[in-house]
């Protein structure tokens, strides 16, 4: 459980976490009311993902570590100013991927070494971008939005999300190593211990 310590079962973390989640909820409501349905839906997906551990365990303190959630909240706050700019979406997608991986590792019976967790987070980032592209396309078709304007722009989206995934993965690797007790670092270097 190389990432487990990122999700501390502490009241303080949970309080900050739920406050941040509240901000995301407000952002989602604002998006839906102003007619930015797709982005609002995405924000609700963030809220749902963050709430799943607490709902499953029945313990309100089951919450990913707040710095991770803070990045997601930041993307929401920035986007409240208006249409979510592309950079915000990349960051939001990559952060959501990390949250998913951390939660799988911590709350589900999934045991990944840090090295593999980072790779998996990057794959998830790219997969989410694919789903996001599909969502945008059908939003354009059915809701009359204009997300996907040109093919070149979409292709640049793919390039950038790949790069963002790589950078965030490297950052995460550093963060997980930085805040891990010494024993776990040594262990992670040789692969996580068997259960």
């Amino acid at each position, binding site marked *: 459980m190389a990432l487990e310590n990122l999700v501390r079962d502490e009241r303080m973390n949970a309080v900050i976490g739920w406050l941040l989640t509240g901000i995301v909820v407000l952002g989602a409501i604002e998006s839906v009311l102003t007619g930015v349905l797709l982005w609002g839906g995405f924000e609700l997906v963030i809220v749902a993902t963050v709430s799943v551990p607490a709902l499953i365990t029945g313990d309100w303190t089951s919450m990913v570590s707040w710095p991770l959630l803070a990045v997601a909240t930041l993307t929401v706050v920035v986007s409240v100013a208006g249409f979510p700019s592309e950079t915000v979406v990349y960051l939001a997608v990559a952060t959501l991927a990390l949250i998913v991986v951390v939660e799988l590792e911590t709350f589900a019976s999934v045991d990944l070494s840090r090295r593999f967790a980072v790779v998996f987070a990057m794959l998830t980032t790219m*997969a989410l971008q694919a789903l996001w592209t599909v969502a945008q396309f059908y939003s354009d078709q059915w809701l009359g939005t204009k997300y996907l304007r040109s093919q070149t722009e979409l292709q640049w989206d793919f390039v950038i999300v790949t790069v963002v995934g790589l950078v965030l993965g490297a950052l995460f690797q550093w963060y997980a190593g930085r805040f891990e007790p010494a024993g776990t670092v040594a262990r992670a270097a040789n692969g996580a211990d068997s259960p």
Partner: protein
Amino acid sequence: MMLGDALGLTDSQERRIVRGLQLVLISLLGYGGATFQFGITGTAGFALGITLLPAWLRREYGYSMDAGLVLWITTAVILHTMGSLWLYKEYQWYDEIAHIVSASVIAGLGYAAFRAFELHSDELNVSSTFRSVFIVIFVLAIGVFWEVLEFALGGVVVTVYGIDDIVTDFVFNAVGAVIVAIWGTGSVSELVGFFRRRLRSKPEN
């Protein structure tokens, strides 16, 4: 368990079909060369190279891939070759079938590598649900990576047909991945064994 069983084909029949499909590719290669259509030569040559990989594996590592699996890979390759040469422009549904088939190959390879790694190393220990999720995520991610690759190649080798084509590709890649995640993981059990032996034979492990 194996793919060919579902179709009721014997191993030797499957091998014969693979040879036949390779002959088609060789004739395409010759046709492209004779008529100076080097787009066709390149596409057919690349496809032929992929269909020869199982034979190379056998020679290099003494691993005979299951005949059904070889047929599966060859079918995916030939579907894409025909598609990129003629049929994509003609029929939308053809593109969708080709993507389901090739995504299922990618899904099978990704799963086999993942499962072998999981069995081999103690870095991973996951549930079967997670393995299924991994297959879908892997295929979607490869789809995006493929788009990056196509973009980087600037449409020289492969043509990008527009936003709706990219989106349909993603959707049908996902369909192929889900099919493998639900029914197909048994088809690559031999491949898992091969990857595992490769991992084990590495000195640092």
